[in-house]
């Protein structure tokens, strides 16, 4: 039976949920994301309470520019789509194409993260909008930084999975791992949509 777990032939329709371990992982991870939702909700609540507490520092509509953030949004949304393709190929037992699409997902993730770092750098150096400038700046960097840290963690995670399974196919043991990594990636994407709306759009307009 243990050998069956590592075999890549005759996979069932949904290899990520074919074993009890897989189903446990799948469900446990959904619950974990439920907890993560509360975590980000708390950060959003804190941010909303402090978004106008600029002290002597700059306000949201003085620092934020929407162009780069819009591009970042598109990049991350696209990476969610490419991870869907990867999962599609995983279910079709096509590990090469899965790795390819995961690779594209990771590349887009790096682009996003690079832009975010550039953006922070820009805020700090051009607007003197540092972490300790005001309660608003602390709340901003903490919320967006938590998201960025999640992206970075996701990148390490997916790259790890790609390297570990580079020389072997999809099997009942690694399919759930790939699947929950992609779930995590979608979650990060959804959180970003809220950040884009609540932090940037409302900061620019509201």
């Amino acid at each position: 039976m243990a050998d069956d777990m590592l075999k890549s032939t005759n996979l069932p329709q949904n290899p990520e949920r074919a074993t009890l371990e897989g189903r446990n992982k799948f469900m446990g991870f959904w619950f974990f994301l439920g907890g993560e939702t509360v975590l980000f909700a708390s950060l959003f609540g804190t941010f909303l309470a402090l978004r106008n507490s600029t002290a002597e520092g700059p306000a949201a509509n003085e620092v934020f520019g929407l162009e780069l953030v819009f591009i970042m949004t598109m990049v991350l949304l696209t990476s969610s789509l490419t991870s869907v393709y990867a999962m599609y190929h995983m279910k079709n037992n096509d590990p090469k194409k899965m790795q390819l699409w995961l690779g594209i997902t990771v590349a887009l993730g790096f682009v996003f993260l690079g832009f975010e770092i550039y953006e922070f750098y820009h805020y700090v150096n051009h607007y003197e909008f540092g972490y300790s400038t005001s309660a608003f700046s602390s709340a901003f960097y903490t919320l967006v930084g938590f998201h960025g840290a999640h992206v970075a963690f996701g990148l390490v995670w997916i790259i790890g999975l790609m390297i570990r399974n580079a020389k072997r196919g999809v099997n009942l043991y690694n399919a759930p791992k790939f699947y929950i990594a992609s779930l995590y990636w979608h979650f990060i994407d959804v959180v970003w949509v809220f950040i884009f709306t609540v932090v940037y759009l409302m900061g620019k307009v509201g």
Partner: protein
Amino acid sequence: MSTTARKAGFGATLWDYLTTVDHKKIGILYLIGGFFFFLLGGLEAMLIRIQLIAPDNEFISAQFYNEVLTMHGTTMIFLAAMPLIFALMNAVLPLQIGARDVAFPFVNALGFWLFFFGGVMLNVSWFVTGAPDAGWTAYAPLSIFSEGHGVDFYAIGLQIAGFGTLMGGINFIVTVVNMRAPGMTYMRMPLFTWTAFIASVLILFAFPALTVGLFLLTFDRLFGANFFDPSMGGNVIIWEHLFWIFGHPEVYILILPAFGVFSEVISTFAKKRLFGYSSMVFATVLIAFLGFMVWAHHMFTVGLGPIANSIFAVATMAIAVPTGIKIFNWLFTLWGGSIRLTSPMVFALGFIPTFTIGGMTGVMLASAAADFQYHDSYFVVAHFHYVIVGGTVLGIFAGIIYWWPKMFGTMLNEKLNHWFFWLFFIGFHLTFFVQHFLGLMGMPRRYWKFQGEQGLDLFNLISTIGALFMAVGTIIFIYNVIVTQTKGQKVSGDPWDGRTLEWAIPSPPPFYNFKQEPLVRGLDPLWVEKMEGDGKIKPAEPLGDIHMPNRSFVPFVMSLGLFIAGFGVMYQGGYWILAVIGFAITAGSMLYRSFKDDLGYHVHKEDLEDEEGDGSNG
């Protein structure tokens, strides 16, 4: 699988427990860890009571008093009550649903080690900088301006322990949803499993709020953030909200499993099906649901305004309804039962009136207008000790005594158990009943000293005497444990004439729990078989190989890494190297875990049949 039992050496046993992923052994670890911190918290309580034995006492200094009272609360809630509940959940829940294991054995072990290192971290503060001194609620801005690193130990220690709790919660949710034996429908689950399940859901949705609160506190104190600094636009009320959004559900995380224990105990020793089982389940779910929308009753005096206060007051009072349903269901279960006054049952009988008093003062405190008088007085202290000690602690001890034979295969001395109960119970009421009046007379909580000649002397003296009774009771319990375990007299698998699945297997159970998956044919499955069958649980599958998880040292190392990193983050400067090392250890062990295939192993059915003799089923 050797059939001859050999006495393992100390080193081997230690390694066994350091690497175990067996929920029963993790339960024992939680029991030892939780009980150790319970004694520590109790010691701190004694220091508080001795300081307050007389007016103007100089027994301990003001600063030390602040540290002791902070650590008493923090230790009892996070390091004693929570892990002791996890001990019972680990020891019993998988057995009650007929599972061979929990859903995530590795994560389960990780949860324990995170709790352990978080607890150690908190207490290291005593030796290096002085313990946290801002109260267990660590309200800002007091916690921001507290000097030294005490509050940093609080924030980082609880953060690590909190991660562990969160993981434990997810593990038990998935265990209940996915791992139930054939026939074990949701509405056939024993009430302890139900309440543990709901408490786990509460953990999942409540703890992240604390996680964020602790992060903000850490960032403010260590990294120059301004969340709680009004001069930079910060808002101290955010901490109170986050803390109580976690903190109120936390009290239900503590009390619901105790309700579950009492439901099992009362039904077993009244020899009756639990009265109103489905309404008990419904009440549990309702309490959990309402528990999330009442947090601001801790903040009536903050100034949220009359409308917010009214809404939270009414919502809080509403919780008395499902709680009342439970009280009546227990009474009706007792009604007409053939009652056996075993010690767990006596704990249950002591619990009902005590908790009812705590519930009544809870409704009093929920009246926002009246709360302006009670707020931050000893009335509040009396109230929450009535529910937490009178509910949770009595429940934990009832559970420990009730399931002791299942966990260790031995039976605690009943006579000593009764002595323990009466000393503890009388001591408890002596300590806390008078505190209601101290509070109403205006004595504020958390004060180092009180003045004489204000009518506070006698009640404070009585309170301290009561605390001594509780201490003596606890010592008797420890004595009982030592005596029982040295004698090591084995009992059968079902010493209480139980009703639920865990009593159908040997005590202590084999590491795979059930040789064959049990077939559940009703609520109280063992009782069903005792009444309608031959008293033995029918198997749901033919004898086959059993899949088991591999042991692992990784959870220990992963947690150790965070422990080391915590010091680096706290002390910074040259100590950053500790953070680098610590996080590298944790990240490395995560990668190791991810990269190394861990498929578990199989126990072959031939080996199972070898052990046929030692399990006296039923």
